[in-house]
Structure formats: structure tokens, C-alpha cells
């Protein structure tokens, strides 16, 4: 591709690139652990989850089992009828009596018809149940991801979330698509054949059943080894996905900085880890399945020998031996299928464990059990921080004992150097995180006691990260208030000064933001985000660097609009450009998580503190 010198790929190099992370367990959900008791706990949880998923389908499952029994009985009848045909029908036929043969043929036809109907019915039903379970699980996991707090997502990361909801669910889907029928059928047919064998010839059957201890021992070995192996594949595939998604998302940087060769190396390495993990898992089944075969074949040889011996001694009939040998084939054949299924089950269980781990996470910012309604009526939106302490890590508090009261309707600007904790204050007010001590209140109600839906109606945070969802521009603005009509959407865009550029797009408000021609510049995206916030019409609006990508005239338009928007609501504004700050009623200067200056901007500018210095610098930077 490129001829550049690439740093040689050494093993150490390929592990160092990721760097050291704050949380070594970031790769797993809290519930996932390698300790044996944790693994056992998780297995138990995934079993509970599975039971829970299957519960609504109990009746359908019952019907499915009935159909299977029907199919199995019909399928089992085949060899028995063959035996009857050979032992009982040929002699009468020789005597010119076709009755028994016709009866056998009739029975066979009936069995075949039953088998067809039952098989078709069962397969259809099991596909329905399987897909319904998948749908349920997919939606549960997705909804749970939405519920989990920002702190969880910061740790768990998007790539891993994608991996859980795609690759892991795929491998459960494989189980659903592949062979639940096989397994039930196999178990049924093994049991029923065992019964028939016992009934046909007890000593011969006893010899056959000697195979079981070996089968069980082999299966236990496989269960233990493959659970580990499949778990590793789930973890390694997540890394592949994480790296893939990240490098595709950052493709501009990748290309501009000629990162491709190095990325290829890294991708090759994570892909290779996944390949090895999968290969190991496949090798286990490659050992297990022929192992079953060995046991089966040895048993056939033994039965042949012993059975032949018994026929020789006149202890049993030739027909019985023939039927026995036919049944034995049907006895061990399903075991092959069973081993395949067992393998898929192990793989799906590994995935299910990961999903159970996610579902087990409790949101650290939890929905209150008994929500307190916010007071209604005019003049609402009084915000207070009471003795608030918070840090992303317990050992490194960012905010210590913050006390702050913002009366309803006041516009407060937060100023301070990078890392002073401005954004953290914003996130606490938006309840992305809960304080580790103290409380944040809105109109006297602790945010922790407010129902999420109500809180989000009341408080909206706009940051510099302006995410647009797939869909049209109008839909993205409507994100702020889903029930808003087109006129309201346009009014919001107009109010913020976004209408002109939107109207100039190829399809105006109906332009798909992800489609050709829908590419918006960073500034335009910020305008859409503003329109969204305006439409949401919250009591408290938090703006965290929300105008940083705007050019001066557009920012001016937004400022102008803010004059109206902020007039009747409480606002917390974080901005490096003091033009925004100057319009505030009150300025707070934050340093290391503490308020060091507090007052109206004009007064602070005059008193010669930190704000005054910043203000002077800013004035000099203006045209």
C-alpha cells in the first residue's frame, strides 16, 4: 500500500499500542470475572435468564415437544416395521398371503405422513419460539444499555456494546437456527431406542448401555474445556469489533496520518487472536465428536460379536439382530448431532453469559423507586448544589464540597481553566452522574428522586459533541420534543438562525443527514443541536461549550436567540468565549473544583481578579 517504513511488528509492540488504562477491568462488565466462583455465578445467572426468556413460550414449547414426540414415534416406527416386514411378512407372502405385508406397508405410509406433518409443524414452531426469544433478548439488552448510566458506558465503550448486540446475539441465533430440534430429537430418539433395545433383547441392550459411562466422561471433559474456549472467542471478537469500529469512525485521521499499515498490523493481531481462540474451540469439538464416534463404533462391533454369538446359540432371532444393528445406527447417529449441538450451546452460553453480565449491571444513576414530582407553575428552575463532592475515581475528587444556589431564571456562566471541573458541574446538574456526597436539587427536590422522563423534560444539556442520528434534519430537531409538529420544528430552527442553511439543503428539512449531500459542517451540526434544545424547552438549560465551532456571525445569531431563550429559564453556560459569558447574570470562576469568584460579570471585570484578567485578554483578542 504505502512504501513508508513501518515500525517492525514485534510481539511487545503489538501489546503496548493500547497503552495503560485507568481501569484494568474496562474490558469486562463488572459481573464478568475470571475467578471460578464468579464464572459459576455468571453461568447460574445466564441459566436464570434463559429460563426467564423461555417462560412466556411455555405452551408453545409444550406443543413443540408433543410434535417432536409424534415425529420421533413415527421415525422410530420405521425400523420396527422393517423388522416386522422381514420377520413376519415374508413367510406369509411365500404362502401367497399378502395381508401382513400390506398391513406393514400401510403402517409405514401412516408413519411417514405423521413424520412429515409433525416435522414441519415442529420446525416452524421452533423457529417462531427461537426468533421470539432472540427478539426479546435483543430488545432487553438494548433497553438495558439505554438505561445504564453514562459512567458505565464510558467504561464499557461503544465497540463492546456493539459487539454484545451483534456478534453475541448472532451466536445465540446460530443455536436457535441450527439445532434445538436436533437435540430434543436426539435425546428422545436415544431414550426411546434404549427402551426398544431393552425390550428387544435385554442382555444385548445391557452391553450397548455400557457405552454410557464413557460418553458421560467425554462430555464432561468437553463441557469444561469448551466453555473456556468459547468465552475466549467472545472476548477476542469484541476486540476485533472495537478496533474495526474505531478505525472506520476515525478514517480521516487514519488516512491523513498514513496510519493504514500500522492499523493493518494491529487489526491483523487482534484478528489473529480471535482466529486462534476460535480454532481452539473448533479443535475441541474436532476431538469430542470423533470421540463419540469411537464409542459408537466400538459398541456396534461388540454388539455384532455378542449378538451373533447369541444368534448362534439360538438365544435370539436373526431379525432381532438385524433390528438391533439398524437401531444402533440410529442410536449413535443422533449423538453426533448432539455433540454438534452441545458445541453450539457452549458457544451460545458464552455469549449469553456476556449478555447476562450486562443485564446484571445496575445503573449507577438509578431511576428512583418512588419518584417525587417536581413542583409546577411559573418561576420554577431553582438549582442548588449542597456540599457536593464528586470524582470519576474515588481517589481523585474533582469537586469538593461545592455549595451553590442558583435562583430560578438566572443565567450563570462557569469560567475556569481546563480541568477546573466546569463540565463536571454541568454533568452533575444533568444527572449524568450522581455526587458521591451531598446533593444536587432542582426546585428543592433531590435529582435522585426525580423520575428520569420528568428530569429530562426539565433539564437539557447541550455539549460541543453534537451527535446527529440517522434520519432527516427535521427528525433530528424533533429529538428535542418528539410530539412537535413541522411548524414547531421550523420555528425552533428559525429562532436559532438555522433555518436558512437547512432550507438551502437539497431536500430542506427532509434531507437525510447521512445521505449524499446531507453532510453538515461542525457549525451546522451545532446549530441543529441548538434548535433541538430550543424545541425541548426545558426549565434548566446547560450549555457546555455549545458554540465553540460557530463562526462569529452565526455565534452572534445564536447569542441573539439566547437572549430570548434564556430570558425565562435557568441556565448554566460554559464557554471559553467571554462574549457568551458577558451576557450572564452571574459569573462563577472555578478552580480545582471550588468557586473562587462569584458575581455579576461587570463587577468581576472591574475588581481585578482572575475573571478580570481573562476578560482583558479576551477584549484584546477581539476585532
Amino acid at each position: 500500500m504505502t512504501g513508508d517504513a513501518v515500525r517492525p511488528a514485534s510481539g511487545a509492540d503489538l501489546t503496548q499500542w493500547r497503552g495503560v488504562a485507568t481501569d484494568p477491568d474496562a474490558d469486562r462488565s463488572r459481573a464478568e470475572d475470571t475467578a471460578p466462583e464468579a464464572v459459576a455465578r455468571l453461568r447460574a445467572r445466564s441459566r436464570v435468564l434463559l429460563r426467564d426468556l423461555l417462560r412466556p413460550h411455555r405452551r408453545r414449547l409444550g406443543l413443540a415437544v408433543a410434535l417432536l414426540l409424534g415425529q420421533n414415534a413415527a421415525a422410530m416406527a420405521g425400523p420396527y416395521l422393517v423388522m416386522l416386514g422381514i420377520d413376519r411378512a415374508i413367510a406369509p407372502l411365500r404362502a401367497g398371503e399378502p395381508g401382513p405385508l400390506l398391513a406393514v406397508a400401510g403402517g409405514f405410509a401412516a408413519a411417514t405422513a405423521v413424520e412429515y406433518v409433525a416435522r414441519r409443524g415442529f420446525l416452524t414452531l421452533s423457529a417462531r419460539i427461537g426468533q421470539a426469544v432472540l427478539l426479546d433478548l435483543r430488545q432487553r439488552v438494548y433497553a438495558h444499555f439505554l438505561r445504564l448510566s453514562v459512567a458505565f458506558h464510558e467504561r464499557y465503550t461503544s465497540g463492546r456494546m456493539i459487539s454484545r448486540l451483534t456478534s453475541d446475539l448472532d451466536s445465540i441465533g446460530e443455536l436457535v437456527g441450527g439445532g434445538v430440534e436436533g437435540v430434543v430429537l436426539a435425546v428422545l430418539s436415544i431414550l426411546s431406542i434404549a427402551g426398544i433395545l431393552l425390550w428387544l433383547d435385554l442382555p444385548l441392550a445391557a452391553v450397548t448401555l455400557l457405552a454410557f459411562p464413557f460418553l458421560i466422561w467425554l462430555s464432561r471433559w468437553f463441557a469444561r474445556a469448551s466453555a473456556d474456549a468459547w468465552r475466549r472467542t467472545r472476548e477476542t471478537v469484541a476486540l476485533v469489533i472495537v478496533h474495526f469500529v474505531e478505525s472506520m469512525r476515525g478514517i480521516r485521521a487514519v488516512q491523513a496520518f498514513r496510519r493504514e499499515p500500522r492499523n493493518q498490523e494491529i487489526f491483523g493481531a487482534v484478528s489473529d487472536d480471535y482466529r486462534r481462540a476460535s480454532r481452539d474451540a473448533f479443535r475441541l469439538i474436532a476431538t469430542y465428536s470423533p470421540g463419540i464416534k469411537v464409542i459408537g463404533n466400538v459398541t456396534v462391533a461388540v454388539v455384532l460379536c455378542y449378538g451373533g454369538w447369541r444368534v448362534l446359540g439360538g438365544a435370539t432371532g436373526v431379525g432381532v439382530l438385524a433390528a438391533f444393528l439398524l437401531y444402533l445406527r440410529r442410536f449413535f447417529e443422533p449423538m453426533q448431532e448432539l455433540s454438534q449441538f452441545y458445541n453450539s450451546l457452549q458457544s451460545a452460553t458464552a455469549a449469553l453469559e456476556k449478555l447476562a453480565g450486562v443485564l446484571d449491571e445496575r445503573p449507577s444513576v438509578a431511576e428512583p423507586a418512588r419518584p417525587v414530582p417536581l413542583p409546577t407553575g411559573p418561576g420554577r428552575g431553582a438549582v442548588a448544589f449542597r456540599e457536593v463532592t464528586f470524582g470519576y475515581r474515588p481517589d481523585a475528587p474533582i469537586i469538593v464540597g461545592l455549595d451553590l444556589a442558583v435562583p430560578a431564571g438566572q443565567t450563570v456562566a462557569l469560567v475556569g481553566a481546563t480541568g477546573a471541573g466546569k463540565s463536571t458541574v454541568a454533568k452533575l446538574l444533568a444527572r449524568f452522574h450522581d455526587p458521591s456526597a451531598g446533593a444536587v436539587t432542582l426546585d428543592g427536590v433531590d435529582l435522585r428522586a426525580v423520575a428520569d422522563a420528568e428530569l429530562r423534560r426539565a433539564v437539557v444539556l447541550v455539549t460541543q459533541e453534537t451527535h446527529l442520528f440517522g434520519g432527516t434534519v427535521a427528525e433530528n430537531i424533533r429529538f428535542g420534543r418528539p410530539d412537535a409538529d413541522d411548524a414547531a420544528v421550523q420555528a425552533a430552527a428559525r429562532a436559532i438562525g438555522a433555518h436558512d442553511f437547512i432550507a438551502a439543503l437539497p431536500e430542506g428539512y427532509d434531507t437525510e443527514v447521512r445521505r449524499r449531500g446531507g453532510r453538515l459542517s461542525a457549525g451546522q451540526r451545532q446549530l441543529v443541536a441548538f434548535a433541538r434544545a430550543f424545541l425541548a424547552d426545558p426549565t434548566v438549560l446547560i450549555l457546555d461549550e455549545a458554540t465553540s465551532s460557530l463562526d462569529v456571525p452565526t455565534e452572534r445569531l445564536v447569542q441573539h436567540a439566547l437572549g430570548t431563550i434564556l430570558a425565562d429559564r435557568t441556565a448554566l453556560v460554559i464557554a471559553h468565549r467571554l462574549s457568551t459569558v458577558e451576557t450572564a447574570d452571574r459569573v462563577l470562576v472555578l478552580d480545582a473544583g471550588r468557586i473562587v469568584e462569584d458575581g455579576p460579570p461587570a463587577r468581576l471585570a472591574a475588581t481585578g481578579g482572575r475573571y478580570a484578567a481573562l476578560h482583558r485578554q479576551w477584549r484584546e483578542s477581539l476585532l
Partner: protein
Amino acid sequence: MPAEGDGNPAPRVGAGRHPLRNLWRLRHYLRPHAAEFGWLLLAGLAATGAGLTIPLLAQRVVDGPVARQDPAGLFRLAGLALLLGLVEALLIFIRRWVQASSSMRIEAAIREDVYAHLQRLPAGFHDRWQSGQLLSRVTSDLSVLRRFLSFGLFFLILNLVTYLAVVALLIRLHPALALLVAGSAVPLFLISRHFARRYHAASRRMQDQQGDVATLVEETAQGLRTMKAYGRGPELAARFAVDARALHDTGVAKGRLLARTSALLDLVPNLTLGVVLVAGAAAAAGGALTIGELVAFVSLQLMLIWPVQSLGWIIANGQEAATAADRVQEVLDTPPAIVDAPHALAPRRADVRGRIRFERVSFRYPGTSAPVLREIDLTVEPGETVALVGATGSGKSTLLSLVPRLHEVTGGRITLDGHDLRELRLSALRRLVGVAFEEPTLFSMSVWENLTLGRPEAGADEVRAALALAQADFAYELPWGLATRVGEQGLSLSGGQRQRLALARAVLGRPALLVLDDPLSALDVHTEALVETALKRVLRTTTALLVVHRPSTIALADRVALLEEGRITAVGRHSELLAGVPAYRAVLSAEPTPTPPGERGLVRS
């Protein structure tokens, strides 16, 4: 919001071509394993042969030693059966063991090739394709392909051979009955063909829907904070429900199709068996067949049940593989639009003077009619710094992206020291250009790795200098210094910190050209001033194009170009333009438009 087809502009079903064409085109991945595959097939056949022989031995036992009261013969034959049984299992073991590694190797090889190709595809391609759709191609689709290569294809051949072998054996036993069995292939073929056609469409739909789900999940993950901020979880869950439901419906339809077909496929050998039983019993009664032969015939015929039963599954697997191959090939078939010209030049840093010239450059995003840039003429002299100024959406960022050829000009040309950029090797060009985007992209890697993205050979001193220039010395104070992982999966940095790291990355290694898109927007006034002072020293000797929003940053530039709706309407010194071009003054000036009296809260400066 319509999720269907989001970000996937390719036609969903390839019309008119043979459905297996794309699968066939992937055969070269099999080639390195061709010999292996041959041996595997041989082992598989031998195993099947051994398996086939066991019922024949059973017949011998029944007809021979048992009939003749010959215990020694009985043990000999049973011993043979045991031996064959062990050989069969051993062969299966060898086949699967080898297959486990070769199929995974093939999958990994395709995955790495798709990844390499995606990295070559230009930004324009990635603008249109959500990574969710791409992701489902390198994960779900590839595992479908792997399953086909390791099982479906193998069993297709094996079962076909088994079928033929069994029929041949049956013919030896009893030609008339055997023909009856062979004739059952006709309905099997008809059923399979009908099924294959319908299943093809369903599996393509399913794979596309899987891509849609992946896309929505990815989007949710990216927009999580926005979702949280507005409490729009229920709405997103509803949207997800639509996609998940569509996937469910297709899954059920596929299941129903498969159920009907496999039941039918099962019916055929069963009916044949019944007919054979009746006719065979009649023949045995007539003395044309020994009972032992009839037992062997029936048990051989039972061996056909699995190959026939599995036919439905194999066809399903094959069809899924075919559509997966279509989807993978869609990506691989997209030609990288921006590639090296033959005999492209690779100028060295030392030989580059750095005169960059836009000659009647126009640009339009693929698939759109309105150009974003029109007839741009601009020359940046070596060592000069030109700032681009213009309203939001005027095309500034697009113009910058043309310099490292992230997008290709659609009209005119850009030259570096007189050479058309398209005559330069991409890697050489991008090595000469240092870029910082409006959104600082940091990957989940160590700070060091993030800084040295394109310059793995950079030394500690160079990195230190770049960090110092960007006022990003905080990087040394991180918990593990430059080894600290940042980005999404690491320590979260503030917007200003990210931007400073991105700036350090751009200036690292003293590139000949600097292309900076609003590089100081997230910095506070104090830091901004420090960075400006440091940057000024670098810009004295480096050719640079900057996108600038604030008057303060314009001080970095020697000249300014005003961009209005994709055209350069004025070029000159800041003070000249300020004095002579009202539009320029309007774009930069913080002076408000006249305010209606009584309205509060506007800036006056």
C-alpha cells in the same frame, strides 16, 4: 426515522447475475488450502467408506457365520468392523482438526483483506456507509462464509459422493430396487431448486437487516450522551424495536421455509424406503433376494437419510454464503477512488519548498449536484500562512480536506511546487502534510501512539517539542504519562485537551505543509494565547492553510482568503480586507446587529 437502507447506498440485490457468482469469486482464498481440502475430502470419503462398510459386514455376519454356525468367522468379521470403526473415527478427527485451522485462516484472511480495502477507500465512501453496515460484513457475513467453507461445501461434495456410492452399492445388490432409489433424486432436485431460489432472497434480506441493527446500535452508542440528555431512551427503543422486529420476521419466514423444505426432503427417502420394503419383501418371498441382502439393502438405504435430510440445511447454508459473499464483494468491488498514479513521485521533505496552488478547483460530494467549492484560485507561497475565513457551511473544511487528498478535486487541480497532487504518491503527500481536524479524533491507544500515528519513527525529543508547542505538557502528568490510554476506552480528556493533542500530532515531525481546521476553538483564552505564540514560530517557516473563526487567530496568518458559498471572494491582508471588504468584516466582527430596544443580554464590545 427510516433505518432501512441507512448509509447503504449499494443496490441490495444484485440483479441479473448468477447468484453464486460472488461466492465463486472468493475461491482464491481457498487456493492456499486446496491441497489440504483435497486431503480432507479424501479423509472424509474414506471415513464414509468405512462407515458404509460396517452395515455390509453386518450382512456378512448374518448371512455367513451366523447362518453357517461359524464362531471364528463371526469374531473375525466383528474384529474387522471394530477396526473400520476406529479408522473412521480417526479420519473424522484428522479432517475436523485440520479444518478447524484452515477455515479460520480463510476467514481471517478475508477479514484482513476487507479491512485493508476499507482503509484504502476514501473519506467519501465512509461518509456514506455507516460502520455498522461494514461491521456486519466483517463479522456476521464472514462467519457465514466460514461455516460454508468448512462444513457446507464439504458436506455438499461428501454427501453427493455418498449418495452416488450408496446407489452404486444398491445397484450391485438389486438393480431394479436401486433404480427406484436413484429415481428419488428427481423430486429431491426439484424441491431443492425451488427452495434455493426463495431462500436466497430471504437470507439477503436478513443480512441487510442485521446490518441495519448494527448501524442503529452503533449510532446509539455514539449518541448516547445526547440520548441521555434528552431522555429519549423510549423513542430509541421503539426505533430499535422496528429493526429488531423486521429481523425477527425475516427469521421466522426463513424458518418456515426451511421447515417446509426439510419436511419434504425427509418425506422422499421415507417413501422410497417404504416402497423398497414392500418390493424387497416381495422379492425375498420370491427368492430373488436373500434376507441378509434385504437387511443390507435397507440399512444402506438408511444411510441416505442423513445426506438427504442435511440437503435442506446445506442449501440454506450455501445460499447464506452466497449472499454473504455478495455483501463482502460489494465492499471489495468498490474501487478506491483516490489511489497512486502510475509512476507517481515521492518527493522528500528536504526537496519540498511548499508552494501550494489551487487552480480553478471545484468540488462536489459524490451524488450531489450542487458544488461545494467553485473555481477556487489560490496560491500559498512557501512559508506563507493563509487563513480561510467564511460563514458556517461555506466550504472551508472541505477545501482543507482536498490538500491531503482525503477527497479528490472534481474540477481543476491543486499543485505542490508545480506538481499536480495526483502525480504524487499518496503516502509521500500525506507525510508532507500535517493535519488537525475540527473534531480532534483520538483513538483508544496510548498518548504516544496517538501522537505518532503516522510517524512511528518519531523520537522522544520530537514528541516533547510538539507537545510543548501545543501547550499539551499535561500529557506527561497523566497517570502513566505518555503510555496512558486515551480515547474512548481510556482516560477521558476534556475537549481542549483533545484538541491540543491533535494539534501536537499535526505539528509533530515538522511537516512541510500544515492544514489546521479551527485548531484552537476549544481552548480557553489564556491557553489559546500561549499556543498562538508557539505556533507563530513554526508558521514562519511552514506553508500553512488555517480555517479560522476568531479574529485573534487571524494574527497567525500572513494573508486571509474570504470564502463565500464555495467561492473565494477576496484575498489579502487582514487589515486590507477589514477596511475594504464589508462581507469580511461581517464574518469576523463581534459587533451585534442593531438590537431592538428593551431586549436584554446582547454583547457590546
